[in-house]
């Protein structure tokens, strides 16, 4: 049965259901329970924004608070994954990956290949990503391209509560390391979500809106922004198709190519910085594989090549807005 759920609650439900189904699923992170060793309430935080609130009382043995030592606990999650557990490590903000990246990209990502196919590392590293929270340069980044670049990692960045639940369940059941990125500005966004557990396979894009004139490719917060642009453009008689990539590794280029073969126009929208990004990657692949279908140069709408600014007046300009997306679409239409 479906009911309306926020993305935040969808994450909680996915973890809850998987922990109930499989006792080898554990989660660790900073204040994911909260109040450890303190005199007051148990489960005092449930994560910095309350995402895991309540899970401790349902699954006390599977929820572990950690010291502020990301390198140690993310690494421990990875090690435990090779030894029979299915850990979820919460790295509060993805910006903190700097202190534990070795364990992710030299260890987890490489085991399967480097050990001749003998290792499985079913670990999920969850973290908040993205700008718009006035959280400034070290708590707002969209670092999807960095992880997408590394062979061996799977990279997920959902745009709505329904996909979040299904993709997180898939991530927990998956036997490879998954970087699961949750846009903090989408936590409150709601949609219909079935109560029963379901998994959405990786590498399958979702056509969030069908259209015939222009293909817009996006992920995360850029999906609702692209849909808003599409609504504006509809009034101008421009019919946009919006493709939500959902997973960036593996990436579903087939759906993108098929769409561009119909529309002949492509706008890639990416909240990441512009160089070596998801936008450049998708553009290059389309230019190679569907060049003949293109009726106009490909457009890219991205953040600028700067850190994320703090001031609201600048941060609002930093994030690709529906207006900027619409402008890029008009350009492909020759307007």
């Amino acid at each position, binding site marked *: 049965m479906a009911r309306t759920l926020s993305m935040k609650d969808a994450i909680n439900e996915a973890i809850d259901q998987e922990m109930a189904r499989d006792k080898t699923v554990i989660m660790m992170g900073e204040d994911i329970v909260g109040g450890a060793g303190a005199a007051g309430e148990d489960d005092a935080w449930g994560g910095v924004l309350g995402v895991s609130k309540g899970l401790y009382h349902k699954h006390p043995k599977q929820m572990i*608070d950690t010291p502020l030592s990301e390198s140690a606990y993310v690494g421990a999650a990875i090690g435990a994954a090779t030894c029979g557990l299915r850990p979820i490590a919460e790295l509060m903000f993805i910006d903190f990956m700097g202190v534990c990246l070795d364990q992710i990209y030299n260890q987890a990502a490489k085991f399967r290949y480097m050990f001749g196919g003998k290792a499985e590392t079913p670990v999920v590293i969850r973290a908040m990503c993205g700008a718009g929270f*006035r959280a400034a340069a070290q708590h707002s980044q969209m670092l999807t391209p960095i992880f997408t670049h590394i062979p061996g990692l799977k990279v997920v960045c959902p745009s709505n509560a329904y996909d979040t639940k299904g993709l997180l369940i898939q991530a927990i059941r998956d036997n490879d390391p998954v970087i699961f990125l949750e846009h903090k500005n989408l936590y409150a966004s709601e949609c219909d979500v079935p109560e029963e557990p379901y998994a959405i396979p990786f590498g399958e894009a979702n056509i969030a809106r069908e259209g015939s004139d222009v293909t817009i490719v996006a992920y995360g917060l850029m999906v609702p922004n692209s849909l808003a642009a599409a609504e504006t453009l509809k009034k101008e008689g421009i019919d946009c198709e919006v493709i939500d990539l959902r997973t960036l590794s593996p990436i579903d280029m087939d759906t993108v190519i098929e769409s561009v073969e119909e529309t002949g126009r492509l706008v890639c929208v990416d909240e990441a910085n512009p160089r070596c990004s998801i936008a450049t990657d998708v553009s290059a692949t389309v230019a190679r594989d569907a060049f003949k279908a293109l009726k106009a140069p490909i457009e890219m709408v991205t953040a600028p090549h700067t850190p994320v600014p703090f001031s609201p007046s600048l941060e609002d300009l930093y994030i690709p807005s529906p207006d900027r997306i619409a402008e890029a679409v008009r350009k492909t239409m020759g307007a």
Partner: protein
Amino acid sequence: MSNPFPLEKDGLLDAYRRMKTIREFEERLHVDFGRGDIPGFVHLYAGEEAAGVGIMMHLQDHDRIASTHRGHGHCIAKGVDVKAMMAEIYGKATGSCAGKGGSMHIADLSKGMMGANGILGAGAPLVCGAALAAQKLGHDGVGITFFGDGASNQGTVLESMNLAAIWNLPAIFVVENNGYAESTSVDYAVASDSYVDRATGFGMPGITVDGTDFFAVYEAAGEVIKRAREGAGPTLLECKMIRFFGHFEGDAQTYRAPGENEDNRKNRDCLKIFRAKVTEAGVLTDAELDAIDAEVLALIDEAVKEAKAAPLPGPAELTTDVYVAY
């Protein structure tokens, strides 16, 4: 009457003014944040003033500090302009960082303030660099990194302690132990009962002081800073202290014991403790301290008023301060 304190009257007034400025700055942010005037999130230093000021009273501009996410107090104690700080927190063009940094990234390199930091433990290696620079350039500057009980478990901090010890750097590792990292108790998260033991393990001396007692901090800091200036190497200084507010503004603090905050305010307020000591000794009068209170209040009022009236950064600022923009 004789003065039993290690500072002359002027010095005592200066210390009080710095502590009071921090307190009013933070109390004001608490109110204005609650009203929704301030973007993002802020971590307040109220209750912890004696530690930052007790240490910073010994420092000059060529002494470098690296601060934390809870950085306002360190900035004020180190002499960063209060009005520019307030404007920064409001995201205005007149702010210390032109509105680009915000509360967690206030810096003023001209004052030896290498930045608040959004990444726990990130200051420790940077301060080893500051200390190395002082050593190589042959001046008597020291580098001081502040970190909380929580951040004391970061690998960067532990690696830096070893590095500072083997290079005999003029570096000081200040653990601001307020008992909590967010909602998690130090008793859960730190395995050793004693930071002094930890320091010993890294081959440096460690000292623990009551961080609510300005004079205890001032004296201990004086010794370790002198040691560093004289080339005798790094020290760890633990200040046990109290965080008056939640981890960040909006924290419901249900992890605390009932009555904990009220008890702290009543019995462990470093400003009250300071006032009692200096007035009971007859070195300063309540009237002198009250006059500072009034001046500080006026300064904070003005800072808020100016910050609110200041312009936001213009659109062109988005792509300045980078060597190339795309």
